[in-house]
């Protein structure tokens, strides 16, 4: 209940900031030495929030469905892509982490490439991946791009987690004559949970970005990424419409973050929460 209040309060603050800036900000923006330091506050650049909300209620095009339905459907479509990408990414990240923990040489050899993989610009990668889509539907391509971003935090965070048990614990397992697999299941996995969940949340956020960008990139129809591009073409005559799609994208990010948090609920219930910083 209290949490809900905070959420509403946060929303109110953002709304007040937006409208407040519109009230006091220069409609032409503030320009210092030829550089615009504050954005324009006019209706074309920053439509009133009520205009955006009202736009959500009106049909997309004459006789079409209301914008909010279109946006929600697009978000659901992208949510599906994100989920697939997240699952694939998390699974691959997990496998990599276990392999890197098991074999020191794999860690030495692979970790730099895992890190390097994230420096490849997504916009360069996406058109390439799109060229492979002979075997699977378009949305799968986008999921792969999402997975490409999502596996990284899981691989790195999970590796840390698997390496986290104190040597006393490992030695104890050894004294029980527990093999590698047993040690992994009984000691390392449970110990890694506090590291896994923050990593999963990062992975969730990354998967959303990957899905949205990948969608735009491969031109996949139906999702929120494509909708943003389509609506932004109308920025000249219908600026509020662009913001409806952006709202949708932000909402999608929040929903994914929330869903990932739910994942940890059953697993972490009996566990003391540990503050961990991954990466």
């Amino acid at each position: 209940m209290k949490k809900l209040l905070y959420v509403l309060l946060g929303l109110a603050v953002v709304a007040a900031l937006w409208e407040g800036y519109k009230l006091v900000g220069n409609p032409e923006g503030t320009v210092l030495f030829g550089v615009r330091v504050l954005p324009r506050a006019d209706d074309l650049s920053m439509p009133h929030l009520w205009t955006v909300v009202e736009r959500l209620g009106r049909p997309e095009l004459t006789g079409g469905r209301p914008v909010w339905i279109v946006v929600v459907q697009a978000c659901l479509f992208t949510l599906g892509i994100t989920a697939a990408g997240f699952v694939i990414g998390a699974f691959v990240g997990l496998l990599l982490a276990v392999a890197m923990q098991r074999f020191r040489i794999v860690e030495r050899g692979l970790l730099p490439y895992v890190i390097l993989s994230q420096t490849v610009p997504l916009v360069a990668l996406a058109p390439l991946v799109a060229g492979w889509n002979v075997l699977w539907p378009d949305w799968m391509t986008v999921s792969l791009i999402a997975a490409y971003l999502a596996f990284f935090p899981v691989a790195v965070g999970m590796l840390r987690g698997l390496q986290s048990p104190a040597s006393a614990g490992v030695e104890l397992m050894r004294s029980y004559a527990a093999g590698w697999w047993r040690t992994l299941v009984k000691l390392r996995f449970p110990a890694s949970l506090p590291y896994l969940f923050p990593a999963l949340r990062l992975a969730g956020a990354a998967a959303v970005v990957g899905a949205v960008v990948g969608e735009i990139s491969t031109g996949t129809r139906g999702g929120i990424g494509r909708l943003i591009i389509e609506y932004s073409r109308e920025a000249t005559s219908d600026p509020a419409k662009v913001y409806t799609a952006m709202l949708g994208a932000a909402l999608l990010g929040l929903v994914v973050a929330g869903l990932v948090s739910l994942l940890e609920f059953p697993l972490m219930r009996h566990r003391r929460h540990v503050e961990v910083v991954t990466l």
Partner: protein
Amino acid sequence: MRRIRIFSAIAAATLVLTGCGTADQDSATPAPGGSGGALTPVKLQLQWFFQAQFAGYIAAVDQGFYKDQGLDVQLLEGGVDIVPQTVLAQGKADYAVAWVPKALASREQGAGITDVGQIFGRSGTYQVAWKDSGITKAADLKGKKVGNWGFGNEFELFAGMTKAGLDPGKDVTLVQQQFDMQALLKKEIDAAQAMSYNEYAQLLEAKNPATGKLYTADDFSIIDWKTEGSSMLQDAVWANTEKLSDPAYQQQTVKFLTATIQGWAFCRDNAEKCRDLVVAKGSKLGKSHQLWQMNETSKLIWPAPAGIGVVDEAAWKQTVDISMTTKNQTGDSVLTKAPEGMAYTNDYINQAITAAKAAGVDVNGTSFAPTEVTLTEGGA
């Protein structure tokens, strides 16, 4: 823990918003499903999402013109990062629609492609200014803030200014322009680049805050590069040069072009029907906008004195000349040398025209008269 949670929520939201700014590319539309065993599957890569600019191809699919030629044509939508001629050169499509200068630039970098049908005989690029700014021709741009899209879309503007005796590097302030017209409406720039069939219409779909009504053509003045003599050839159908030595591909090309001609002729004569076809394809742009675009697109094609799609020697030469001589703000020209090999050929389009004529299609559109399209707010 809560801090992390809130942070990741914010991170997700911000990242999503940041993600939006990133541009991109395209993908395939679902295949219509193998119809009849005898049809040859053909993929055509478009430059952008479905819109009336591609109505002729859409109509040719919908009206079964391609099917009549034994082709099962799949239209691939474009996107920000999709380069149609690259998709074609890589063999991911059988034909591509692309602007001539851009495709020639790709050719120079090794893409083996040939212009087999110059569908748009005229350029649709404008430079639009406010009427009260007094800008009516290229020379008037002196000392003004001039918006341009860059990425190879700017050369008609630069050639026009150069032709009018301006040094684009010194005499004007160049501003990188977004793909909407907000900068002009906010008077951040004095003149904005616009396509007659798209961005210019967006201006006329916007509400003038001063009057509460839509802007009208009287509010703006247009510099048309066709009259300034610096226009370049735009939408053309490109084919794979290497494959053109294969008789089967040659035949297929003629068939493809024949049906394409039928499609464009159909849209010339049935603008509203074609508007509906485009809208039915799921375009997010409204009906009046698409009808405007259909009308303007037809103007770029018809009348076609030599027949639709035939490359006009003089226009081609002008395009190549400008591509080689005009420099943009970074000092680059589109081409460093004259195109080598078979950059264009009229062989296939002429065969296609003969075939289309035999089927009773008017390939010249001499009697074509554009209509007056009334735009509504937001183009809805």
